[in-house]
């Protein structure tokens, strides 16, 4: 018996493979899943995912917020976006990060900008997750 990891986004299935272990960024803290895990449903926050493939290779992926549905031999991850570490364009992510940060600093001085602020904040979080995933992948 093995553990299947399935990552689904609105753009399609990103990942569907047998894995040994997966560590996910849960809303209440990171958690690891091995096979024969208890049935479990949780919200995820944006963050890096650690995927240990059979044979011990470790792969990293960046996800946005969503859910994980865990059963004994399957982990289904539902997220808006998922990028594997090697797909991440670090320069672009850093650029987005810097841009969102300066935009946010500007918005902080304004009133009545909650709408845009939430949007910029989410862009900022997504960019920093990508940067972190990238650095973990390369360390």
């Amino acid at each position, binding site marked *: 018996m093995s553990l299947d990891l399935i990552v689904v986004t609105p753009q*399609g299935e990103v990942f569907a493979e047998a894995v040994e272990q997966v560590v996910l960024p849960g809303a*209440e803290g990171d958690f690891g899943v091995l096979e024969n895990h208890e049935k479990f449903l*949780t919200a995820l926050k944006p963050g890096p995912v650690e995927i240990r493939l059979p044979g011990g290779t470790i792969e990293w992926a960046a996800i946005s917020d969503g859910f994980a549905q865990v059963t004994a031999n399957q982990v289904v991850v539902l997220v808006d976006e998922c990028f594997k570490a090697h797909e991440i364009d670090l320069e672009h992510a850093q650029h987005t990060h810097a841009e969102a940060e300066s935009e946010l600093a500007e918005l902080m001085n304004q009133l009545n900008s909650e709408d845009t602020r939430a949007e910029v904040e989410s862009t900022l979080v997504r960019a920093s997750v990508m940067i972190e995933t990238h650095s973990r992948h390369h360390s």
Partner: protein
Amino acid sequence: MATLSDIKRRITSIQSTQKITSAMKMVSAAKLRRAQEAIEAARPYAQRMRETLEEVGSAEASHPLFEQRDEIKRVGILVITSDRGLAGAYNGQVLKAAESLMAKKRGEGSEVSLTVVGKKAVDYFKGDRGRSVKSARPVGPNVNYLEAKQVASSLIEDFESGELDQVIIVHNEFVSMIAQPVKLVSLLPFVPPSDDGAEAEADQAPYEVEPDASRLLTVLVPKAVEVEVFRALLENQAGEHAARMTAMENATKNTEELIENLTLEYNRARQAAITSELVEIITGAQALE
């Protein structure tokens, strides 16, 4: 009667129109294929989202977005059209349906607030008709999820704050190449999927939910609404290309017919010219005898 060169000119002009329409048909066919793939790709996500929602909904069934209000004071209508025209009656039928829905809701004593997506609808609701437009944006060349998310979250916010009591989407659904019927979808209050499969799985252990079900629902339900908006945008995208493909195919057929008739007219005129020339020569020769 039109001269030979006139007819010739018309034939040439129609031939170049034909080139354009058949090229547009080709382009739409390629785009349609991509749009259909996008719909296919979004299906597993929507499916699993529904399953999760059933799972959590069965444990905990209350959420602000489920709330059915007794008095509908303000209705939000999300109208989705394409950015470009030349797609037959595609956009017209959505706008007509939106107008009649607005009239109906106003008749029932509700105020109407429009959220408009797609340049065609944006243009249509400009000026006087646009008194009730709250926000407007183009669809863009490719539908992406973040856009659907933005549209959905502003509607959700208005519903939660009591600004809107009901939200309805008006859009074309992609059924087939020749059928893209207008569909009215009630978006909010959100109706949780009914838990039909529950009995069959009753013997299975329930999921342990973390944090608790009600907090999970507060994240899940808005996402389900986003998915619904995303789906409508994708359907609209595929329907647009299908409608344009059909429209352009008809246009190409019409140009063929026109060219055929004009060619016939051209040949007749040419023959008439030859005949009259011959008659002239013969009468001239006879006069000399």
